[in-house]
Each structure stands twice: as C-alpha cells, then as structure tokens.
C-alpha cells in the first residue's frame, strides 16, 4: 500500500533518498519524463507539449527529523532538530537512525529520580539524548556517524472510524495524492515536483519552480488540525473529515483570490466538500513558487492533520480521497479552458 510505504520510509530534510526511490518506481510507468534536479527534487513531466497552461503540482518528500551532532563518552548521542520539532514531544520516543535504520530511544531521567522542580518543567532539548545501547563512544561511532539523521519509529495503521495513523503524513500524504494524480491523464501540460527540504525553508521548491517555470502551481500539503472539544472554532485551524482545506492567508502567502475562487467554484460544481483553513501560522511550498520568476498563479490544497510534526499523526481517509477528487476536478476544468483569470477577478 503506497501511503503506508511512504509514511514508513525515512526522509528528513536533505535525506529524502528512500522516499524518492519509492516514488520514482511508483510513477515512472505513467509519466513521459522523470528526473532529479541538483537539490534532489524528483520532477515528473506528463503531456508537456500539449497546449494550455503548464500546471505544476508540488508535494514535499521531506519530514522533520533529528540530526546526530555529538557522541558522549558514555555512547549516548546528542542531537539537534531538523525542521520544526517541539522538544516537549521527544521524551521517551523510539527513533530509527541512519540508512541502516538503527533503533534508538530518546532517553530521559525517570520520574523516580526527578527533583520536584524538574517535574514542573519540560525537559530542555540539551538534556535529551538518543540511546542506541552503545557501551561507550567508540562503540557508538562504530554504528553511527555525526550528521546521521533520525526519524520517529512509527508504524502505519488504520485507526477508529475512517482514519489512518502514521508518522510523516506531512507531507507523504501530499506525495501520495500527487502520485495518484500522475497515474491519470489530462489535456494540460503537467509537471509533478516531489520536492526536498521544505521543512527547513521551502528550499527545494524554490529551485524547482525556477526550472519548471509553471503558469499555475498547486502545493499539496498537510495542515494543522486541532479540533478538540476544548478548542474555540477560531483556534482549531481545520476540522478532520471536513474536506481538503484551502488557504486564505498563512505565514508566507496571501491567497491569490482569483485562483482561490476558481478552486472553490470547482469544488462546488463537482460536489466535493472543502473547508477554508482558519489559521495564519504555517506555510507551504506555494509561498516559494508564487514568487518565482515573474510570479505564478495558484494556491495550496491541504489535508487536515492532527498532531503535526509529532511521532503519531492522524488523517481522515475521506479527506484524502476528496483531495484527490478536487485536484482531479481542477485539472479537468483547466483542461476545458475554464480557468480564465479575469472571470474570477470579483
């Protein structure tokens, strides 16, 4: 199962190789050309010589992770986050390190030994370490090098009513949606970009957008969802099962209103549920693509994701399915010539 394979693969920013391998194998039979750029972004071209605006679909392959930056004499590993990791969620988690996927545990002082004051505060990042069971520094360095990366050790599974649980839905769910779309055919020039290093600053998308020079771009993402009973409506971001989320403004983009209207109208026309993302924080690759060259029209379609950047995350299978339907409908509408900028300009 593709989504399972993608989420269980290892791919922190800059180390996307395993994910790229899976995607290359998966989509190769369906595209005209497939290649990587110098940063490692996997670019897939399909029907590029057809008439019509060139559409770039973007999904980033990388996930947040940890990087080993030191080894103590005791053999314990010091690390630093790669991307936005909340240190408070790290304590006592299982991780896998390096391409050999060496198992490790993020250790911490047990409650029995903590002083009353220590129990009141989260353990600071510099007091956390990864334990790989090494007996000393030399033993540790026989298995791990500085610069090796680690990701959470989480298995994909179905959970509850119509949900799935895994690590790294951000943004393997986007990669999954893009793969499914690339398996279909549309009467528009289409370029899929599985980008690198989004979590450290939209770096892969910046170079990819310059190379591809699209007319229209859509980032396929996972986005914050915290729809608990104790959260007011304006603080939940999105709702699970509420359909794919469209952005009005985030930390790095103000929506292109015309394309936003086009996407909303398309969803309504095709009877696809959607929601507007109700939070300013966060961003995605579209922010970088929008500013590329002479500017690019487009937006983002995001899957509501509970517990973003945490070891175990939850998405709704229905939301994923509806996102695929929405991207499919948008491409059909563009192919039919129904995206006309002026028509959506108020």
């Amino acid at each position: 199962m593709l989504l399972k394979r993608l989420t269980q693969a290892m791919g922190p920013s800059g180390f996307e190789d395993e994910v790229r391998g899976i995607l290359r194998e998966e989509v190769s039979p369906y595209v005209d050309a497939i290649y990587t750029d110098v940063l490692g972004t996997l670019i897939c071209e399909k029907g590029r010589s057809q008439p019509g605006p060139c559409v770039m679909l973007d999904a980033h392959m990388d996930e947040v992770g940890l990087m080993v930056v030191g080894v103590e004499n005791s053999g314990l590993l010091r690390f630093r986050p790669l991307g936005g990791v909340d240190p408070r969620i790290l304590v006592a988690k299982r991780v896998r390190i390096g391409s050999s996927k060496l198992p490790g545990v993020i250790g911490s002082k047990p409650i029995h030994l903590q002083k009353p004051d220590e129990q009141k505060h989260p353990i600071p990042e510099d007091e956390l370490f990864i334990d790989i069971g090494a007996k000393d520094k030399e033993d540790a360095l026989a298995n791990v090098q500085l610069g090796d990366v680690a990701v959470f050790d989480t298995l994909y599974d179905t959970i509850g009513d119509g949900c799935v649980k895994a690590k790294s839905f951000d943004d393997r769910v986007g990669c999954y949606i893009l793969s499914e779309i690339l398996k279909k055919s549309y009467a528009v020039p289409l370029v899929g970009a599985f980008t690198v290093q989004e979590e450290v600053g939209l770096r892969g998308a910046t170079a990819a957008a310059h190379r591809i020079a699209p007319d229209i771009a859509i980032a396929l993402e996972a986005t914050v969802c915290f729809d608990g009973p104790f959260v007011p409506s304006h603080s939940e971001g999105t709702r699970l099962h509420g359909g794919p989320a469209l952005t009005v403004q985030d930390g790095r983009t103000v929506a292109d209103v015309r394309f936003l209207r086009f996407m909303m109208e398309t969803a309504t026309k095709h009877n696809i549920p959607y929601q507007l993302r109700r939070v300013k924080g966060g961003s995605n690759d579209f922010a970088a693509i929008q500013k590329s060259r002479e500017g690019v029209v487009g937006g983002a379609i995001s899957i509501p994701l509970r517990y973003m950047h945490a070891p175990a995350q939850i998405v709704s299978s229905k939301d994923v399915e509806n996102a695929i339907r929405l991207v499919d409908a948008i491409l059909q509408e563009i192919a039919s010539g129904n995206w006309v900028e002026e028509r959506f300009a108020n």
Partner: protein
Amino acid sequence: MKELIKSLCEHIAPPGGERALSNELLEKVRDVAHQTSIDRLGNVIATKNGDGPHVVLMAHADQSGVMIMDIADKGFLRIIGAGNLEPGRLVGCQVVFQNGVKGVVQLEANTKDAEIRFDHLFVDIGKSSKASASELVHIGLSGVIVAPFTELGATRICGGSMDNRVGCAIAITAFRDLAAMNRHVSVVFTAMQTVGARGVGAATFALSPDLAIVVDAGPCDDVPGHDVSSTELGKGPIIQVMDGTAIVSVRIRRHLEESAKKKGIAAQFGVWPKGSADTDAGAIQLTKAGVAVGGVHYPARYVGSTSTVVDVQDAQNAAILIVEAASSYEG
C-alpha cells in the same frame, strides 16, 4: 500632490487586494507610458521607453489590514493581521472590509493590554447570528482601519493609508516628469509589500532595472519621549543608508546625496535596523544577478499605527530629488 494623495487614499487595498487600486494607479500614468500591465501577483507596471539607463521607481500599493478567518456563532468575526498592524492598537477602531461592510474591533473580556494578540480580538458588524453575518462577509475577506485622509494645517496630512499612497503619489509625479524628459523609466506599484516584500521580486525579474529607487514611508522619531531625533518631519526626503532588508551601495547613496545638493534640497539619512522600516529594497537587490537599488523615502510619524502623519513638502521634494537622480544616473 496633496490632491493626488487624497484621491489615492480613497481606496481599500490590503495586501493581496491591491486590484481595487490598480485602475486608478494606471489612469495616473497611462497617457505618458508606452506599456502598462498588471502582472500575476498584482504589481501594476508602466514603462516609458526613452534615453539613458532603465530606472525603475518602486512604491508599494498595499496597506496593512486585517483578514476575516472565522465567523463565530453570535455573528462576531475573528480576524488575523495582514501586514504590520499591532493588535493592541486596533481595539476600539472601526474597520471597513473590501466590500464596504464596516465594523468595530473589540477585545475579549478579561484580556490584559500587554497580552493582546489577534486571537483576543473580534469585529462586531452589527449582526446577531453566524448566518446573518455570513450573508455580508466571508472567511478570507480583508479590511483596513477606517482613518480617512485629513488635512492638519497647510502642509501636513494624516490618515490610515498614507503608508504608502504618499509613496505612490511621489512615484507617479516623478515618473511623469521623467517621461516628459524622454528618459527610459518604469514605475511599479508593488503588491504584498506589507506582508514581506512578496510582490516586488516578480516585477524586478520582468523589468531587469539598471537602477531601482524605492519610495516608502521613513519612520521619524521627532516626538515626545525622544531627546534626540534621527529623522524629522518637514526636514526633507530621507536617503536610505540601510534598512532590515538591504544596505544601499555607497555609490548609489552618494549619487542621491549629490542630486539633492544640486537641487538645493535638504535631505536626511535613514539607518533602520531590521523590523523597524523594512522595504522592498532587499527583494529587488537580490533578484537575478543583483540589482542596483536606492531608497528615497518621505518622513512619516507613527508608521505601523492606525494613522500616520506626513508633510506634503517632504513628498514634493522627494519627487524632485528622484527626478534629478534618475535623469543624471549614468549606470
């Protein structure tokens, strides 16, 4: 100049919503331009072909505002910022949305002044249910603070959109003068500057200027609480040394300084640390293989607040300085 500023101030143009102002801006320059366009990001561009290096004047069209991000059960709106407005300053202000709907910004009960964030604010548009409010407004609709153009005596003016309609007026005036001199000149009214200089890069990429001159509000500190001021209202245009986005090359800065001298205009210098007066300059400077950039700004009091005070004479002198510098620039 005052009338021009006044007419530009009548439009609502939050970041991403600059198109409400685009036509009026185009009308002010179309008759002297060879090409005009609005690009994909909403930058409004006019070019006059002519002699000399291609000088591009850059003034941002957008103003800071707010955006609706939720409509609550009783018809109250929840908002996020769009630009640099500080949430604490908005309490009690009126806001007008892009479709003309007005409301009052207020604060959740039991919030201390020091803690005010956008999540504590709401807008009352006079509706009592989510359904009736939803008939008037929608998530993603933007608005600006109601603070109309007002004259303060003979030469000073204030209002909520001074930053940067004054800059647009200066750029229009200078562009027209340079066109009349048959110089090769463009003007760009840039989009989405207040959210972080997002529009200008695309226009710079398209135009490849030989020299870009940014025109923006230069915050001045000649107000109670400062013993010594570095920039003052009414003391002439501000030549940018550096802001949080760009250090202007000494060659360009000297050229601007000499141009002011040649015209007998008193000028001041702007040295602004990051965050205090960030402009489009950095995004321009780092486009393609690099672009020569300078800044000629007008002194403005209370930048970032809901109403800014400007002296029209400073604006007039900024335009004269820009025309001199652009027409004598040799590349």
